[in-house]
């Protein structure tokens, strides 16, 4: 029977033996490469998702020497440790929470020392504003209406109502403290400046100041009133070693019965945690809460960057491809632009710092904000300079992609347009640009993907670990291009390497890494998709 017609240059896996092992070695190379890429994404996916998954709490009796200790917590890691004598110990790392009681949230336990281990249903995981999560047993709820012991009817209702009210009241207090008191103090500084500049006379300033001071006191007492009323409710619980912990309602965020919850309950909890992660501000030195400001900063910075890079990149590419005389000089320029894509990103950061921040920013300060000097306004790293720096960094990507797309437009199409009487610009505008739009879009998306994942230059031109306010908010003039901002990539670096409690920060790091990778990979996939469609279109329309 004759063999099937070959579909690839080498249909069978080789009839000749000579050199065949080398072919297999190259196959191994590809396998290693692909497996590495997949494994890494899988690792981040698994670790990132796992950081949201609510785990069961183990209650363990740990015997060290003569001392028996009761420890409740969930296992975060297993490892082997070799001691000074070369004996291998199987150890587990347990997150026991209650940092206010034990000082440290994590503890390594030798498996050999665990006398008993159970998963009692009454253990609760309590999220709170301070000291990280707590693992406790419920004792009672104290409300203005009276005390309800755990297990009595109405206990759960009272607890849930308190948590809900706490969330509402915290928002109200935040609004008063951050927004209204913030506006108050901004006005105060404004008056100080105006008085120094001689724009208002001292009497008016003093009167205005007294008024503001009065309003400040009123707002403060308002917030205090809410707080006091809220804290009439308290959740009383005890740790597994019997010590009592009192949670004032103000500090209470969420209570989750970690061992009682079924699959649906766990899934629900996981989605709640993902929601919190995406929408809330960070707490506790960024190790808890969410990453909303970092997401916001990344998005705004990337959008601003594409806003800068798109027109300039496209115009430059049109010039190089359609207008410039194709000679040696353009060839050199093209090679240099290509090479810029390979220049280390940190070099762009260095340039951004010297040129944008100190030269341009410093110049703006001297011209427009000289009354605030020596405190710099624009002469300090900020989101505007960061996005400009990244725009420069990604400019070659856009130029190269646009040039390629322009050159892929068939000659016949252009000539047809010119033959119909269109001017050069009309040809470009009506024929060439629409045809190359997908290619340009691919370039822009690739630039955005590169920009979103870049961290090194940002460290020099505007990223911070904790920004007190967002670059766009509801305070006039609403857009604040001079502000510093948070960034997902820098958040990973900061949490992983500069966090005071690196162990507690790990889940956040993995979750943030997952988020960043999802963003970058999605952008890339979109670019690849558009590119593939573009190929098909040109394959059909080529003359």
């Amino acid at each position, binding site marked *: 029977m004759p063999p099937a017609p070959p579909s690839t240059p080498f249909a069978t896996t080789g009839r000749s033996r000579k050199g065949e092992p080398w072919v297999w070695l*190259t196959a191994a190379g590809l396998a290693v490469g692909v497996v590495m890429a997949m494994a890494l994404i899988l*690792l981040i996916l698994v670790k990132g998702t796992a950081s949201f998954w609510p785990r069961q709490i183990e209650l363990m009796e740990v015997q060290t020497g003569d001392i028996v200790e009761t420890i409740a917590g969930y296992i975060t890691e297993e490892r082997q440790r070799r001691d000074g004598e070369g004996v291998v110990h199987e150890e587990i790392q347990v997150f026991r929470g209650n940092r206010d009681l034990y000082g440290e949230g994590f503890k390594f336990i030798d498996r050999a020392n665990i006398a008993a281990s159970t998963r009692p249903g009454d253990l609760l995981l309590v999220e709170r504003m301070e000291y990280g999560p707590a693992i406790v047993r419920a004792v009672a709820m104290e409300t203005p209406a009276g005390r309800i012991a755990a297990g009595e009817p109405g206990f759960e209702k009272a607890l849930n109502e308190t948590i809900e009210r706490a969330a509402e009241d915290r928002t109200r207090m935040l609004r008063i403290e951050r927004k209204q008191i913030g506006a108050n103090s901004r006005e105060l500084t404004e008056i100080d400046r105006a008085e120094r500049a001689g724009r208002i006379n001292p009497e008016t300033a003093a009167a205005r100041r007294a008024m503001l001071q009065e309003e400040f006191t009123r707002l403060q007492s308002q917030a205090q009133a809410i707080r006091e009323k809220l804290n009439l409710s308290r959740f009383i619980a005890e740790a597994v070693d019997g010590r009592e912990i009192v949670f004032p309602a103000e500090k209470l965020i969420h209570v989750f019965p970690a061992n009682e919850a079924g699959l649906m309950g766990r899934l629900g909890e996981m989605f709640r945690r993902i929601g919190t992660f995406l929408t809330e501000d960070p707490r506790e030195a960024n190790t808890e809460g969410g990453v909303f400001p970092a997401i916001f900063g990344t998005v705004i910075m990337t959008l601003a960057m594409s806003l800068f890079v798109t027109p300039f990149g496209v115009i430059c590419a049109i010039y190089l491809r359609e207008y410039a005389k194709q000679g040696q000089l353009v060839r050199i320029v093209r090679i240099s632009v290509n090479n810029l894509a390979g220049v280390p990103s940190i070099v762009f950061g260095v340039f951004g710092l010297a040129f944008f921040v100190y030269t341009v920013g410093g110049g703006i300060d001297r011209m427009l904000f000289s009354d605030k000097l020596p405190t710099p306004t624009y002469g300090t790293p900020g989101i505007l300079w960061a996005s400009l720096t990244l725009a420069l960094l990604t400019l070659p990507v856009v130029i190269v992609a646009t040039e390629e797309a322009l050159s892929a437009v068939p000659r016949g199409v252009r000539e047809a347009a010119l033959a119909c009487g269109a001017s050069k610009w009309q040809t470009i505008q009506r024929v060439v640009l629409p045809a190359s739009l997908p290619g340009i879009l691919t370039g822009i998306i690739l630039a955005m993907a590169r920009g979103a994942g870049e961290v090194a230059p940002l460290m020099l031109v505007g990223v911070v670990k904790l920004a007190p306010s967002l670059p766009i908010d509801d305070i006039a003039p609403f857009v604040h291009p001079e502000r510093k901002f948070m960034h997902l990539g820098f958040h990973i670096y900061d949490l992983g390497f500069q966090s005071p409690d690196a162990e507690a920060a790990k889940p956040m790091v993995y979750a943030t890494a997952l988020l960043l990778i999802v963003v970058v990979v999605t952008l890339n996939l979109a670019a690849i998709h558009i590119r593939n469609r573009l190929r098909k279109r040109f394959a059909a329309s080529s003359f």
Partner: protein
Amino acid sequence: MPDSTPTPDPRRFEVSRATLWFDRLMGWLIRFGGIGVIVAVFGIFYFVGKEVLPLFREANVEPAGEVSGEAAPRVLGMDEWAELPFFYAGGNEVVFSNVATGERSVLPVPGLDEVEITAVSHDPVKQRIALGTADGRIGSFIVNYERKFEDGREPWVAPSITAEPWFALENGSGPVTALGYGDSGSGRVIVAKRGEGPSSTVSVLRLAMKKGLIGKGKLTLAGETDITGQLDSEARIVRASQNGAMVLVATRSGEIDYFLASSDGVTKRQSFAPFENTTPARMDFLFGGVSIIVIAPDGRQEQWSLFRREGEGERLFGMTKQFPTLPQGDLHFAASQRNRSFLTTAGRFLTIRHSTSGVVRWEGEADIDPAAVALDAKGEHFLVAAADGTARKFSIHDPHPEAGWRAFFGKVWYEGGPGPVHQWQSTGGSDDFEPKLSMMPLIFGSLKGTAYALLFSIPVALLAAVFSAAFLPHSVKRVVKPAMEIMSSLPSVVLGFLAGLWLAPILETRVPSVILMIAAVPLSALLLGYIWCRLPIVFRNRFEGGSEWMIVLPFLALAGWLGWALGPVIESWLFVYKDPSTGREIADFRLWWPQATGIPFEQRNSLVLGFMMGFAVIPVIFTIAEDSLSNVPKPLTAAAAALGANRWQVVWTIMLPVAAAGIFSALMIGFGRAVGETMIMVMATGNTPITEWNLFSGMRTLSANIAVELPEAPVGSTHYRALFLGAVVLFAMTFVMNTIAELLRQRLRERNKIV
């Protein structure tokens, strides 16, 4: 019949004016924009270069006024703002002379009436003038300057004088003829010579400062030591270091004796002779009190520093630098109080030199014969005074004296080191810290990181590229190639954090496993290929060509797992660490490595880095190499196959040689990517600037160095500009590499067109 057809518009073939205008406008706009962008992009080089250039500029010295003290200046001093220099002629008054107005004022020094001053010494840091008298007493006074502000007046400098108590020398007789004074804060060390000729004596006086709870402390005599017996001949120059820890005595025979002063007494540590049998004409301490500058009567100028020699426990003086020979003439010397610059005059010849790099910063001439010189505290001005009291003020503009080609790229003998080295240490704990700004350890670190990254990435990427280009079916390639491209877009901060926090702790304990895996994986593939081609052809025909990489996967996994599992076995067999004190044997590679090789083992090492950098570098090399291999003209490969070459022969003899230039350019671009990588380097290398190729230690790369230090560096400082220089070096490395790669690729493309 009337003509019903309208006459055609004669202008029907003309283009509308508006269209033409718009066309022209857009043409200009795009030209302007395009050229503007290109110029702006190249402006980057200009701006980064502009920050670096001042590092290589020489010092600029300008005359900045004249002043007269109308007395022979035995001591000349200047305030921080270089406004009000003082002249002290050795009497009972100090003359202050304003440079701007020429106004002179005289302040009396208390307790100096009817005292004959026979020796003086000056400490410019504290502005202390120490005095020795004809009857063997020693005292001192301090010139204080204070900046005063008052409404409606320019700020001015007001001088005052504080005198300190007198102490009488017990040993020797005759007038004090030479004096050195050091102040450690808690005590004073004074070295004094009495008398002249062979009968002269040298003693060291130690004073203790008893600090009361309130008010100023009280000076008391702690002891006097006669060191005459420990000198081989008559003392000529005596010096005490500014911090009061050391005493140096240069004798007539040319020997310098080094004494250490402590609260217990004075002990002689060393004798050395810089100029054989000639007494140095001058001997002065530099800023920091670790080095001295000695000048021979014939003008040779050398720096001697304290350092610990190889195998010795004590820091002793040794010659570290020689400066260009000075012309003949009267020698004067002033050391900067800010860095390691110093001013020397020889006759009318003036020169500023810097001790770290050993270079001459400036040379010039004075129009008077200097009898005294003074440098201000900021190192921005100096004053040269003639014997008749006339003085010239000069301003120095030398913001980066410690910079220069030699400081950045050559070996420099830093103070305290046993020899010239390449070293990067930009900040230190104290004010007198000597910055060490050699680029070489950083360049080395970048190259080391790149080398280890490429060592792992090149084989994987090239093998994968060959397989993908030569054997992989198109349908699979459409998926595999984008997958690899996505890998290249993984943010490096994620890779870095995985390297530092996840991979490093895992690999730390499993080094033998990793070594085994690295060996097992390729070997298993080769073995599988060897066995495979000996299987019956009927069986092999069931598998379509190009699926080898899928077939090989489980075997690779098996080999990898075996390597991983057998690692500890190998470890307990080969890498056994024997505790030298107890003799116990522990199988632990981490302990064995330092013991066997003498170089350290660190958790964040090149192994971890090389692996993680693979994620960043493999896709880059893969994509470009694959492209150039795929673009090998089909007629060539088809011809080879038709002539009977098997598939590996086609790859080996046709595809690889034809695509060689493209593959080479892929390697270059991979190099560029690895050299400039920042976040992985910051997070996974430990950031220690060492220069050794040890696989199990880290490094500090140019890029990581910039990212870590630039946010902290003061704008415009030498450190700041040195970091910019690092960026320029990095930029140059990658730009050159990329340009070569690009040119190679273009040539290849043209060659392939011909076929």
